[in-house]
Each structure stands twice: as C-alpha cells, then as structure tokens.
C-alpha cells in the first residue's frame, strides 16, 4: 500500500520519520495503556516534570492515573537483564500541567529507551539518534551534552549542607556565576575550588574545544574519559557539528547519573529534547541493569512550520 505524504500533517510527518529512524537502528515499538496505577508515580514523584497527575478510581477500586511520563512504565514492564540490551521506542500522549495556563495539557512525546548492559556504544548510539532526531525536525539544531559527574565531583568535595549543594546546582543550571561566587564565599569554600566550578559552568563550545581544557583537572578525569569514549565514534560523522559541551545541563541527581543532554532548535525558546543515563532511577526501582534514553516533545514544534528539517 502506498501512503501519500500530503495527507500527513507536520506533526505526523515528524513522528513517522522518528519512528522509522528508531526502528532502522533496531528499536522495537513499545505500546502502553493510557492508564497506569497511581502508586508508580507517587513512589517516584520527583522524577516527574510536573507533580500533578490526573487520577480516577477504576471499577475495581484501584486508584489509576493518566500517564504523565512513559519512562517509568517502560522500566516497570522491562525485564531486569544485565547481560543483554533492550531497545525500545514509543510515541505516546502524556498529561502534564502547562506552565502558562496551569491546567492539564495533552502532550505528544516520542522517545526511546535503551535498557540493560549499557556500554559506550549504546550511549553513542542514543546521542547520535538524539542528534539525528533534531536534524529531522530542523536543519538548525544543537545538542548540548554534559556529564553529571563533572559538577558532582566538584560540588561533593565542598563541605556544605545538602540545601547549599542544591542551591549551587540551581545556579549552575542558570549559568549564574555571580551567585555561585557569593554562595562559595559565604560558606568558606576555597577560592580556587569556587573558581573551578564557575569556569566549568561558563564553558560552552564543541567537544574539541572544551574537553582538552578539562584534561588537566584530576578530579574530573573519570567523567571526561567517559565523555570522550561516548563521543569518539562521532569522528567523521556529519552530526558532530551539532554537539556542544555545556555543564549547565543538569538533571535531578537522584535519578540521573553520567551523561545527560538537551536538544535545542533555533526558533523554539525551550529545549525540545531531553535525556540521559538514569541508572539511579533503575536502582530505585530495584533493577540491576543500567539505562539511557531521551524524549522529544512535539508540542513546541507547531511554531516551527516555516523552517523545515531533513525529512521535508
């Protein structure tokens, strides 16, 4: 059967292009039900982007929820296999509170998860698919990559309270160097360490520009090596020019670890893609294996119709 492209609208074209991209790389479609037991979200409340969930009581008396997130369901239903790798993609509606109107909104999300024995190649493949997804949507896109180990190894070496560490992380996400200096000075942190933290957050550039600058900092060597290993296969790949290193990309450290990333498209004010390694969430859900994945948020893309990506 031949499908005429013209009947597809903008969103649908993107969704189909992403689905065929992911299945080309061996990711299997994952179909989930609209509802999930509310319990799953309560246990991992901080993992959700908005903490409100639409709930209702099912006919059997169970409290159910319209899913605000897909990752948790995929982990719950996946096998805990440390030796193999499961590759899944999804295309689902999620229900979250919109920041502007403060009411629930249906958001179309496409994403993938790679669960199991995660090696550097898996991480590279996920990064590469994230970059290619952005490129499918728009020719003018950037993928910001960070390693949480870089910030945490500096901040964890400070003897300050948990609240102060959280405040420092928040400043890092805002690239707020002046407040980092102020917090460090107030808490008696050595000026060299405070300066190192501020330097690292102010770095922004391609991996080739930034990573060599980090080479001589012993406490960062492990994280930098992991970044290098995951990015090495990009050599010679045209997607490489989309990559930037930016340590202000932070995700909740209770769930994420290692490499995290966010995708931006010129003309859309917020990130449209977000992902990373979430071994800590796996641990919290009693899994021994690791995981990495990302989601593309399609609700923002309506504003971009005049700027077409590779698939158009």
């Amino acid at each position, binding site marked *: 059967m031949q499908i005429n492209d013209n009947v597809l609208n903008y969103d649908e074209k993107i969704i189909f292009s992403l689905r065929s991209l992911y299945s080309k790389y061996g990711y299997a479609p994952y179909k989930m039900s609209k509802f999930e037991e509310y319990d799953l979200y309560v246990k991992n409340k901080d993992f959700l982007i908005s903490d409100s969930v639409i709930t209702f009581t099912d006919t059997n008396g169970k409290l159910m929820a319209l899913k605000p997130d897909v990752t948790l369901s995929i982990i719950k239903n996946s096998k805990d296999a440390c030796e193999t790798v499961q590759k899944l993609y999804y295309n689902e509606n999620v229900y979250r509170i919109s920041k502007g109107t403060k009411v629930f909104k249906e958001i179309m999300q496409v994403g993938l998860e790679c669960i199991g024995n995660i090696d550097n190649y898996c991480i590279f493949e996920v990064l590469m698919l994230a970059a290619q997804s952005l490129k499918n949507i728009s020719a*003018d896109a*950037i993928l*910001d990559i960070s390693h949480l180990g870089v910030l945490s190894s500096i901040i964890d070496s400070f003897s300050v309270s948990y609240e102060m560490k959280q405040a420092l992380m928040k400043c890092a996400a*805002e*690239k*707020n*160097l*002046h*407040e980092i200096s102020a917090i460090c000075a107030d808490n008696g942190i050595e000026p060299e360490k405070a300066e190192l933290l501020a330097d690292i957050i102010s770095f*922004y550039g391609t991996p080739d520009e930034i990573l060599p600058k980090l080479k001589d900092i012993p406490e960062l060597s492990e994280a930098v090596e992991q970044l290098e290993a995951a990015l090495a296969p990009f050599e010679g790949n045209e997607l490489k020019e989309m990559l*930037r290193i930016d340590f*202000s990309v932070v995700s909740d450290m209770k769930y994420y670890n290692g490499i995290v990333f966010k995708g*931006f*498209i*010129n*003309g*859309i*004010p*917020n*990130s449209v893609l977000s992902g990373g390694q979430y071994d800590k969430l796996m641990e919290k859900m009693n899994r021994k294996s690791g995981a990495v994945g990302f989601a593309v948020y399609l609700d923002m893309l309506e504003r971009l119709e005049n700027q077409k990506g590779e698939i158009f």
Partner: protein
Amino acid sequence: MKQMLNIALPKGRLGEKVYDMFEKAGFECPSIKENNRKLIFENEEAGVRYFWVKPSDVAIYVERGAADIGVAGKDILLEYEPEVYELMDLGFGKCRMAVAAKKDFRDDPNRTLCVATKFSRIAQNYYSSIGRDIDIIHLNGSIEIAPILGLSDVIVDIVETGTTLKENNLEVIETIVPISARLIANKTSFKFKNSQITKIMRELQKND
C-alpha cells in the same frame, strides 16, 4: 543576512541606565534617544534591536524567546522563576526584599502571620524556609497601607531607601534577599547567538 540580537529593556529610569551601558559597550542605537513613543529601535549595523517593555515583563519576553537577552530585577526572577540563564549581576538598581511592619509590631508565633505583598512566591518561600505559617494577601500596589489599616500584620516588599516606610510609620524587621539588575538570556538564543551574547558580556564586564 546578519542575525539581529533582540534586547528587552525595562521601561523607565533603570532601562535608560541599562541602555547607556550597552551603548558604552559598543551596541549603540542612536534612534532610541529620540523623544517619541516608539517602542522598537533598530541598528542594523551593530546588529541590535532594542525594545521597551514593562519591567516585570522582561523575563517573560526573554523566556519565550521574543527577546534574546534582557535586563530584569532579581525580584522579578525570584517571583516568576522564568527558565532563563542569569548571566550577570549588573550591580545597579540595588535594593533589598524585606519584611516590614508597624513600629510597635510584636510577632505572636501562636497565630498565623498575615502578610501583604506583591511578591507572593518570595514571601511564601521565605516563610516556609523558616517554618512560619502564613496567610498571603496579594496586592498590586500601595502595599505599605496594609498594616496601617489592619489588613495584614507585615508586608514583604522592595525597600530602596526606606523613606516610604518611615513616612508611613513602618520599619524593616528582616531582610530577605538583596536585589539588583541582572542580565538574562533565553536558553535557545544563548546557543544560536552565542558569539554575540558572549561579546556583550565581555564588553559589559570591562565597563564594570
């Protein structure tokens, strides 16, 4: 075609000071000094487009990408928590967010404290950080009048010199946070117009 950098300036005295800073840094736009009611000014050569907006709206223009960068008070950033980069403390427009009350006010921890403010989120965050139960009365102006009329026990507001407070027989009982003007940037713009934004930051730092 040269990519224009869109800059949102807060209308008023502060905004004029901000523009002077940008001008000194080499991003001039002479037409802005003309006395008229235009809101948008462009200098294609320098690659900048300025526009005047209500000070409390600067953060929204930047967050939504209508402006690439802008200058907003820390009070606005704390109250609205926009998703933007806070790149620099410009060091002027200095004042503080404070709790003020009538001179004879004594806090009774046994009852809910009634707080009148324009900055509900800042007040809420401050009192929850010290574990005090409060009720918030959101007002849009003339906050100082609330304790005098018995509408509230205290107010949370910006204090610059303290003259208004003094004239209304009020005094500061606690400083919550110092405030000053900040340079903010849209997250996407920071990536796609990075060289222009870092150039502006460098020049502004030189001016300090």
